[in-house]
């Protein structure tokens, strides 16, 4: 497998304390990779480390042949990684359409093809494109957030708990959208609280605990692993 993203023994944290301890993971082209693990394991922190949103004290971040460790966020975005944070991932006071437009901020020239692509994935958003994003339901906000991240046609999409707090119906819909997006050639790395469902649908998974790699494998293997099941999937 040629890795699109390779996190190589990343160590770092927010202040002086290290949250991530030698975390490594890879995402291949056309892959959906999921990170699962208990609360506070450092899953979100691992995602933020891709964008250098914390102090990295060891290891390096390789993306598509470039060492992107220490790059400014807008350069990383331009290079092809878009990121949907776990919280505060929309512009509340802006309309759906404006949220998407901001997602496409770095694109030179016409955005209409990008709008078409996103609105095809999320027909609901097109209908309500003038609505303020802050007034939408949780599920629809999540779609705006993902839509915003897709506007630049990224090579890799980072999604931090896109299904948190959503009904099973919405969860299934978001997973389906992930597959559709992957089928258009976008690799996805996501963090999931719904570990079982996520491992069942992802190509590969990583189990993170206390800031360290604990297990990795295909979704099916991890689901079948007794230790993983007992410790992290609630039996």
């Amino acid at each position, binding site marked *: 497998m040629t890795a699109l993203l390779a996190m190589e023994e990343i160590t770092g944290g927010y202040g002086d304390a290290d949250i991530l301890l030698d975390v490594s993971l890879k995402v291949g082209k056309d892959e959906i990779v999921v990170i699962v693990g208990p609360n506070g394991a450092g899953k979100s922190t691992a995602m933020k480390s891709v964008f250098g949103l914390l102090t990295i004290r060891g290891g390096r971040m390789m993306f598509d042949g470039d060492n992107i460790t220490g790059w400014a966020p*807008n350069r990383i975005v331009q290079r092809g990684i878009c990121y949907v944070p776990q919280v505060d991932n929309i*512009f509340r006071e802006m309309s759906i359409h*404006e949220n998407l437009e901001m997602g496409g901020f770095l694109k030179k020239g016409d955005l209409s093809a990008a709008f078409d692509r996103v609105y095809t994935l999320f027909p609901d958003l097109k209908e309500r494109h003038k609505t303020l994003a802050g007034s939408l339901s949780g599920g629809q906000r999540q779609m705006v957030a993902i839509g915003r991240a897709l506007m630049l046609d990224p090579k890799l999409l980072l999604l931090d708990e896109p299904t948190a707090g959503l009904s099973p119906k919405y969860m299934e819909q978001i997973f389906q959208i992930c597959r559709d997006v992957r089928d258009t050639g976008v690799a996805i790395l996501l963090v999931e609280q719904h570990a079982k469902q996520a491992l069942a649908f992802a190509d590969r998974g990583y189990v993170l605990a206390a800031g360290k790699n604990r297990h990795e494998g295909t979704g099916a293997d991890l689901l079948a692993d007794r230790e993983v099941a007992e410790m992290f999937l609630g039996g």
Partner: protein
Amino acid sequence: MDFLELLNFYVIPGIVIGSIYALGAVGITLIFAILRYAHLAHGDLATLGAFVALAVVSGLGVSPLAALPVAIVATAAVAVGIDKVFYEHLRERPKIVTVMASLGIALMIRSVVQVFWGVDTQTYVRGIVRPEDYFGLRIRDREIYTVLAMLLLVGALQVFLTRSKWGKAMRAMSDNPNLALLSGIDNKKVVVLTWVIAGGLCAAAGFFLGLNTELKSLMGWSMLLPVFAAAILGGVGRVEGAVLGGLIVGVAEELSVLWIPSEYKAGMAFVILLFMLLVRPTGLLRGKVL
């Protein structure tokens, strides 16, 4: 007192001074929305704008209104410069550090004004301007220009914020700075843009204050309290709120002399500010950034 008298002596002057406050308050609100601190040098920056216009009027012999664009451009440039030299490297520090720094800048600008233009009272045009009579309403031309210019400038700003790419980027930065960064929006450019707009509006506020009253080195400083009251009254972060707040504070100040001695007129802004902070700190139009 009849109704026309009320309009002529209190409401119309209130709307005029309110428009001037509005121009200042919009800048205060924008700076707070993007940079998240109270800019205390705003009043003195307005003073500078007013005196730059005076220099153009007396130097080139043009009419005051023709000098306004020059004052706007110059003050915008000064505002950007001040940010680059003084505020930029305080960005990561607690905001109160920048607030205190801006107080220092206020004193500095005032000194510069006093060195160049002295401490005496000056005017753009000499002599008394008599108001025209419009069906009993007595209005001076300069008062019409003031209100029109405010509406025009704020209207243009609203179009910019809602229609243009960079205007939307400014709103995005105010709404969710972290996500704006993750969308690739260059926050340095947004900050420069904010100072250009706030500085330009500030010059307009100072200019029209000078045009309707007189120019003196403390003119802007004494406008600071009503301008902040206006911004908070309207809801911090809301441009249309700042305009509404400015007009209310202006009219309230003028009307207050019906009940209290006019020396205490300036206290109205303070009363409004206190009242809003106690009763509805988010402002009339719910503030976006508090």
